């Protein structure tokens, strides 16, 4: 049955080459931990993506309960933590995943750096990767405010004060992020929510797609 459905679709749109392109390639010995245990360093990139997937899935479930307004944001997180079945685990995964993804990203970056794997012809993919790092830091900064507890509020206030000191565009930058020239409040929370849930993930998906397409296109760098 499934084979028939597959054949029916394949007959019309020729999907086999699409997934075969991903499936049919050889994994060289020097990146395979089964042959050289030290090759586990090549796992860091994949594990970063794995944690990213965890972040996306747990985040999707968190938005089912989270309310981005200053009256209810903290209450909804408190409710999640104390009342909703297994929500403490889901929020725990999102909270710790935010830290673990930074750690894995750092390890992956260091692996690529110390192996000189960013050298010609892979300069572009390195830059895409560094941009992914920046987007992740942005996700960390905006996500930190969302529970609307004291540490979130005051950390964000400091962050916005720093944004304000940027020459020429500082004032505008702060208003863009906070929604007001002086108040860190309701507008700030909804803006950070929108940035955290829509803007930055959109940028992240685009960059990840570019990252992976470039890897397939160029292959993994050879052994040192």
């Amino acid at each position: 049955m499934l084979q028939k459905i597959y054949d029916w679709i394949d007959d019309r749109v020729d999907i086999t080459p699409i997934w075969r392109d991903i499936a049919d390639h050889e994994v060289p010995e020097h990146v395979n931990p089964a042959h050289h245990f030290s090759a586990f360093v090549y796992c860091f990139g994949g594990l970063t993506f794995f944690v990213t997937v965890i972040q996306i899935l747990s985040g999707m479930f968190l938005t089912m309960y989270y309310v981005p307004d200053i009256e209810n944001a903290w209450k909804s997180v408190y409710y999640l933590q104390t009342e909703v079945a297994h929500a403490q685990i889901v929020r725990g995964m999102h909270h710790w995943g935010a830290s673990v993804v930074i750690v894995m990203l750092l390890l992956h970056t260091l692996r690529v750096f110390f192996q000189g794997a960013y050298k010609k012809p892979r300069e572009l993919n390195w830059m895409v990767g560094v941009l992914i790092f920046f987007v992740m830091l942005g996700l960390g900064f905006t996500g930190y405010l969302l529970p609307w507890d004291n540490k979130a509020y005051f950390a964000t206030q400091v962050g916005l004060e720093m944004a304000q000191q940027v020459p020429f565009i500082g004032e505008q930058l702060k208003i863009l992020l906070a929604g007001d020239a002086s108040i860190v409040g309701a507008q700030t929370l909804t803006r950070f929510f929108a940035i955290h849930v829509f803007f930055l993930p959109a940028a992240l998906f685009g960059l990840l797609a570019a990252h992976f397409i470039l890897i397939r296109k160029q292959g993994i760098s050879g052994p040192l």
Partner: protein
Amino acid sequence: MHRGKGMKFVGDSRISATKTSQIPKDYSEYPGRTEAFWPNFLLKEWLAGSVFLVGFLTLTLVHPSPLGGIADPTNAAFIPLPDWYFLFLYELLKYEFASGDYILLGMLGLPGLAFGALLLAPFLDNGPGRRPGQRPVAVGMMLLALASVVWLTYTSASHVDWEARAEMDKPIPESEVAIDTEHDGYAAYEASCMSCHGGNLEGGPAAPTLVGIEYTAEEIADIAVNGIGGMPAGIFTGSDEELEQLSDFIMSVNESTE
């Protein structure tokens, strides 16, 4: 251009073998055993992923994610602190050369230089050699940057008493206790107890909450007169009738919350 069947690629890449520019060395030029990605290698990857997931879930179960008290913009005593991966940037601003008149250097100059160099690393370190020994400047700079980040993060975090911070910033939901200010005993409460136990019986720095206590009316009256724990005797100074009204008032608040 040659397409489709018979096309030759370099290694596991999508770069045509017949094109001469930008070709990485073919894997067949390296001695070694390659393995098909699908399904052999992917199964092993899933295995590694499962082990990672077990460790990760253990972390989330052992350490439930923290939640502080609800944001209070009027709280002047709260010392702001960013998430740990921004601590090094925060700590940098405490140095004399990176704060005050030089704030832009500390906030934009140094981090901008470091992250800018990271972004443009392939162009700054553009020699042919890939081994760390063949590019001492790039590797040295990275080690220096890494050491600074670790040192700054450590310095910043070591000054913080994390337990005291968590203790000061506990998640306490808003009280839903209805206080009947018309009650006979409220005046006595206001006169004798409120300064320490708070307007909603919620407690304060010097006294515990009076909501959810398990005393009888007689015991409450006794405590009000003779004290308990850190509460000295003789705080209540009214008449016996007022004392009875007071204990009745505290009991009624407790009953209303049950």
